[in-house]
Structures are given as structure tokens and as C-alpha cells.
């Protein structure tokens, strides 16, 4: 299954039982049976008939604005309805102890993934290990969030040591809008990852509105934010490092916006091309004794969470 990225402007239609994008330069057909989700960056027209078709084919539609920020998702009607699992998901959120348990696992898994990332590049960091131990003793979510924040700051400073070109170092993390090249790349990568995970959650029984580390509220999907913490280093940060150190991405790929920077279309599609490649990459899975792609690794993480919620097996991140 593939993700479709749309930069061109035109209209999205259902035609001959498949997806058709009509632009000035002609019609293009997209094989609907092989589409996992559609991410729209350009200006498209669409109608209700098309949305109905996406619902029927179970394809979420994600929108991004001109700056590359996530705008929202057309999340088709749930097709894997499980009232039981939703109750369990809510139970683990309301019960402070159960929620803290899951949040701790997510944070320690995320720090572990940072450590692993640095270790692979021969950078050792004892303070990250200390942060990881601290998570075990954390008494509430806000303390945990604090540890996570500090660990990430520490991690980004170590990551900076691996960037050859000073111009492309992260320095301080800035958002909305990101103020330098590195921050822009990482923000863009993170928002791609959020939507990819959201699309994968759609294929499970989980409800993306109930998260454990991130506060469940009235506004947004949060479970995908939780899971993304585990995968940011292996997907987004690795991509960032590769693109910058091989000089594939440079100043030309950025546009200035008020008080910050954004990727232009050329930069975005270069990033996406590599992002898709990373998701398709396989790693050897010891327990399964075979190679699995990173995309399926994310999905397996979701299934592990499901199992935990159903009380079958305690959740262990990234094993």
C-alpha cells in the first residue's frame, strides 16, 4: 500500500471506479486498490461523491496548508468498530495508574530510541540513560512530560554534533514557524509522521482521539502523537541527517515566510521521496525471524498496544 502526495492543483474525482486527478496537463489515474492514504499539499477541488468513494475504499485524506503544516484529516467512518476496545482505551486513560504506566513506557521507549540512534553513530550519552531511569520514578504525567522534554533537548544537542554544516544545526528547537533550516525539516518530517501513523491507526481498532502521554482533549488526535515519539529518531531524524550531510537539501529548497522558514515544493517533494523510501526499508525482526518494513513495524506497535489494553500482554515498546 502506498501514500499518494498531491502537489499539483486540480480536481480530485471518482472516475471509472478509481481515483482521477484532473489538471491542466490532463488526467491522471491513481490505482485506488493500492492507496493507503492521500496527502494533499496543493489546491484541489473535490466533491461529496469522491469522499463517499474514499469511505468505501477506507482511505483517509490528509490536508496540509501552503507552509506544510497539518490542517486536518477526512477520517472516513470507522470500519473496525469495537466498543469493547474503546472502553478499555478509555479505562486506561481515566485510571491514573494505568495511564501513567503506559505513558512511562512510551517515554522510556522514546528515549531508548534516541539512545539507539546516537549509539549507531558512535555517540554515547550517559545523561540520556539517566533520563530513562528517571522515567521509572516519575509520579505524574507532567513530570514525565518534563523528563521527555529535557531528554529531547539533550538529544538534539548531541544530534547537532553529527551535522557537518553549521548552517544546518538545530540549535534551539523552534516551531510555528520554525526559524532555521534544521527546525523546518524536522517539523515537516514530524507532521508527515503524525499523519502516516494516523492512517495506520485507522486500520486498527484503536481510537486515535485517546492518547496517554499527550493530553486527551477536545481538539485533536493524540494517540498518533504518542506513538510517533517512538519513531521520530529512526525515521525523521535519520532522514534529516542524511539529507543534510549529503548536501541533497540546501538553501535553495527553502522559502522565507514571516518570522521563519518553510520548505518550497521542490524541497517538500525531495523530502517526501526519501521519507517514503525509509518507510519501505526493512529491518530484521528477531522474534518473527524475518525482515519487516518500518511501516509494518509501526503497525505492530499499534497491535502491541491493543493487546495491552485487552489485558493479553503488557506493552513493551520497540521490542
Amino acid at each position, binding site marked *: 500500500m502506498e501514500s499518494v502526495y498531491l502537489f499539483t492543483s486540480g480536481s480530485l474525482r471518482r472516475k471509472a*471506479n478509481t481515483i482521477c486527478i484532473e489538471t491542466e496537463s490532463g488526467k491522471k489515474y491513481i*490505482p485506488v*486498490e*493500492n492507496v493507503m492514504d492521500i496527502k494533499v499539499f496543493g489546491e484541489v477541488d473535490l466533491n461529496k461523491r469522491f469522499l463517499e468513494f474514499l469511505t468505501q475504499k477506507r482511505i483517509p485524506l490528509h490536508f496540509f496548508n501552503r507552509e506544510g503544516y497539518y490542517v486536518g484529516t477526512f477520517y472516513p467512518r470507522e470500519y473496525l468498530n469495537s466498543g469493547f476496545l474503546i472502553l478499555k482505551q478509555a479505562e486506561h486513560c481515566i485510571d491514573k495508574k494505568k495511564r501513567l504506566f503506559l505513558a512511562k513506557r512510551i517515554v522510556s521507549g522514546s528515549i531508548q530510541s534516541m539512545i539507539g540512534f546516537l549509539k549507531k553513530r558512535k555517540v554515547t550519552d550517559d545523561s540520556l540513560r539517566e533520563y530513562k531511569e528517571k522515567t521509572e520514578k516519575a509520579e505524574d504525567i507532567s513530570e514525565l512530560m518534563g523528563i521527555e522534554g529535557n531528554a529531547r533537548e539533550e538529544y538534539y544537542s548531541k544530534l547537532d554534533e553529527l551535522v557537518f554544516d553549521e548552517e544546518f544545526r538545530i540549535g534551539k528547537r523552534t516551531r510555528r514557524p520554525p526559524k532555521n533550516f534544521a527546525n523546518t525539516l524536522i517539523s515537516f518530517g514530524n507532521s508527515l509522521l503524525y499523519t502516516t501513523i494516523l492512517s495506520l491507526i485507522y486500520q486498527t481498532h484503536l481510537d486515535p482521539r485517546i492518547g496517554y502521554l499527550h493530553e486527551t482533549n477536545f481538539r485533536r488526535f493524540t494517540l498518533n502523537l504518542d506513538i510517533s515519539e517512538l519513531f521520530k529518531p529512526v525515521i525523521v531524524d535519520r532522514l534529516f541527517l542524511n539529507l543534510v550531510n549529503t548536501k541533497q537539501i540546501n538553501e535553495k529548497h527553502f522559502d522565507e515566510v514571516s518570522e521563519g522558514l518553510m520548505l518550497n515544493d521542490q524541497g517538500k517533494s525531495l523530502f517526501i521521496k526519501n521519507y517514503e523510501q525509509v518507510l519501505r526499508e526493512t529491518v530484521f525482526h528477531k522474534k518473527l525471524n524475518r525482515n519487516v518494513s518500518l511501516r509494518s513495524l509501526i503497525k505492530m506497535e499499534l497491535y502491541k498496544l491493543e493487546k495491552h489494553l485487552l489485558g493479553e500482554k503488557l506493552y513493551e515498546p520497540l521490542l
Partner: protein
Amino acid sequence: MYIIMVYDVNEKRVAKILKTARKYLKWVQNSVLEGELSPGKYEKLKLEIERLIDKKEDSVRFYVMDSRKVFELEALGLEKSDNGFIL
């Protein structure tokens, strides 16, 4: 699996075959489509095509490969469609 589909059918059915195949694969040139498919989806595609064709007249061939990596594509002349999922 990576599939290359080639067809040579009576003119009456060309449009039908194309429409069906386009749901699963990317069109690359007249009568040729290709793309990554899961084994299940491939079976579905074959079934749909089989229902459309006249077995005495038409011929449809599928080249099935483990992945895109096992073959190299060399193309000359005009590229009829840009294949990719970034549009």
C-alpha cells in the same frame, strides 16, 4: 509483489480492461500497466480480468516479480507517464 500486465484484446474490450486494471496498477503505455500489489490484490485483479475477456480471442499476460529490485528498467524515447505517487 511487482506486477507488469500486458494485454492484447479485441477492440471492443480494450476500454473495459483498462478501466479495471487502472484500479490496481499504474498505466505506463498503451496496453501496459505495472505496480506493486499484495498477493491478495493480485488474485482479485486476475479474477476481475478473467470475467471480462473472451478466452478464445483475448490475451492478457502478467509478469510477476518478487519486488521492483529484481529487474532493471531501460526505457528509450518518450516517457508516457511519470510513475510515482508524488503528483
